[in-house]
C-alpha cells in the first residue's frame, strides 16, 4: 500500500519543526509513525507535509525530578520498557509500555506520538489520565484531565508539539488490557492508580476517548482491593461497537480489566 504523495522534512530542532509546520498547508508532525504511517498507507490520512521530529535527541530522555518521572515526548516505548527508573518507580507504567504493539513497533513508537494521536485504542492515554500526568508542550503545560477531548481530539493547538510528560509517583498502580490479538491495540485497557490524592481509574479502548470511572474510584478509595470493583459496571450506551467487540462486551470487560489492574497494582 502506498500513501498519497507528501513532502518530507526532517527538522533539526523544535524551532525549525514549528517553522516548517507553519509554512506548509496541511502538515503533520512525524514521530515514530506507528499509527500515522499505517493510516497514510490506507489513505485515511493525507497530510501535504510531514515534519519529522522523531530523531530530535532533545526529546528523548527519562529522569526523576522532585517526586515525578519525566519522560521526553520522543522517547520510544522500548526505552520506557527498558528503563530501570520507570521500572522501579512506576512499574505499572513500564508494564503498560511493554504491552504496546510488539517489540518492533515499540522500537519506533513514541510517548508523545501516542498522546498527540490519541487513538481511542492506544494504551498510554490510560496511564496519563489515571496518573494525573502533566503534558508539557512548546506552548504550555496541560493537565491530563484537560487534555483528552474526544475521538482523536486533544487540547493541542495547530503546530503545538509535546515535549515531555511528567508523571507524579503513585503509591501503587497497575494496568490490564484485553487486546486485539493481531494489532495488540486495546479492546479495553484499564489503568488504576492509588495516589496521595485518591484513586484514579482510566479506561481506554472501550469508547471514543479515554475516560475515568468515578464510581470505581470511590469504591477503591474506601478499599483498594480487586473485589471493590467487581460489582461496578459502566453503561454500554456510550461505548464502541465494532467487529472485534460489541459495546456490551466492552462494558463487561471494563469491570474485568479493572479488577485485574487492581490485582496487578496490589501484587507489586
Amino acid at each position, binding site marked *: 500500500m502506498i500513501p498519497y504523495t*507528501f*513532502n*518530507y522534512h526532517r527538522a533539526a530542532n523544535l524551532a525549525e519543526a514549528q517553522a516548517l509546520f507553519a509554512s506548509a498547508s496541511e502538515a503533520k508532525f512525524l514521530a515514530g509513525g506507528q499509527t500515522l504511517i499505517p493510516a497514510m498507507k*490506507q489513505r485515511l490520512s493525507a497530510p501535504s507535509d510531514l515534519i519529522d521530529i522523531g530523531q530530535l535527541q532533545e526529546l528523548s530522555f527519562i529522569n526523576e525530578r522532585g517526586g515525578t518521572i519525566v519522560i521526553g515526548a520522543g522517547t520510544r516505548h522500548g526505552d520506557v520498557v527498558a528503563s530501570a527508573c520507570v521500572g522501579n518507580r512506576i512499574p505499572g507504567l513500564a508494564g503498560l509500555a511493554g504491552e504496546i504493539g510488539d517489540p518492533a513497533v515499540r*522500537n519506533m513508537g513514541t510517548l508523545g506520538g501516542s498522546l498527540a494521536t490519541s487513538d481511542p485504542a492506544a494504551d498510554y492515554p490510560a496511564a496519563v489520565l489515571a496518573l494525573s500526568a502533566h503534558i508539557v508542550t512548546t506552548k504550555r503545560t496541560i493537565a491530563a484531565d484537560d487534555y483528552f477531548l474526544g475521538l482523536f481530539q486533544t487540547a493541542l493547538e495547530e503546530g503545538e508539539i509535546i515535549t515531555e510528560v511528567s508523571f507524579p509517583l503513585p503509591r501503587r498502580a497497575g494496568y490490564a488490557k484485553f487486546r486485539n490479538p*493481531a494489532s495488540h491495540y486495546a479492546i479495553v485497557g484499564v489503568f488504576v492508580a492509588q495516589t496521595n490524592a485518591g484513586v484514579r481509574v482510566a479506561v481506554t479502548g472501550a469508547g471514543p476517548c479515554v475516560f475515568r470511572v468515578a464510581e470505581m474510584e470511590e469504591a477503591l478509595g474506601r478499599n483498594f482491593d480487586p473485589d471493590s470493583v467487581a460489582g461496578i459496571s459502566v453503561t454500554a450506551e456510550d461505548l464502541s461497537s465494532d467487529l472485534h467487540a460489541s459495546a456490551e462486551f466492552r462494558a463487561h470487560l471494563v469491570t474485568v480489566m479493572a479488577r485485574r489492574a487492581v490485582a496487578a497494582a496490589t501484587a507489586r
Partner: protein
Amino acid sequence: MPLVSVTVNGERKSANVEDRTLLVYLLRETLGLTGTHIGCDTSQCGACVVHLNGRAVKSCSIFARQADGANVTTIEGLAPDGTLHPVQAAFREHHALQCGFCTPGMIMSAIDIIRRGKANDRDTIRHELGGNFCRCTGYQNIVDAIEAAAKEMPA
C-alpha cells in the same frame, strides 16, 4: 526525487526515492534485497522486520527518508555467503520453517530478542514474537530454534 544514503549490511548505498517510498520498497525494489518480505502490509505480521541502527523495526511502516544516514541490516547481511548466522543455523537445525515466508522477519526479530536478553524462557519468547506471524503456525519449532540459538549467542 531526493537522495537518501543508507548503510545497508555494511555498504553505503544511495538512491533517489519519492518522499512516500517505504523503507521496504527501497530495500526490495531499488537495492534488490528481496529477502525482506511484505506480508500483511499493515505493520502486524513482521515479515518485513529489519534492524535499523541495531533495533528491530517494521520496514513497511517506515519511510526510506526516515532511515537517511542510518545503518540497516537485512537477512542478507547476517552472515557471509555460504555461511549461516547462529540463529539461521538453529532455524535449519530445528525445522523452524515450513513455507519460509515469515522466516526472514522471524530471524531478524529473534536476534533482537536474544540481544535484549528475552530468550531465556519459552513464554517470554512467545510474548516477544507477538509481532511476527507464521501462517503455517509452526511456532513450536520457531521457539525451539530461538531457545537453542540463545544458548549459542552472547546476550
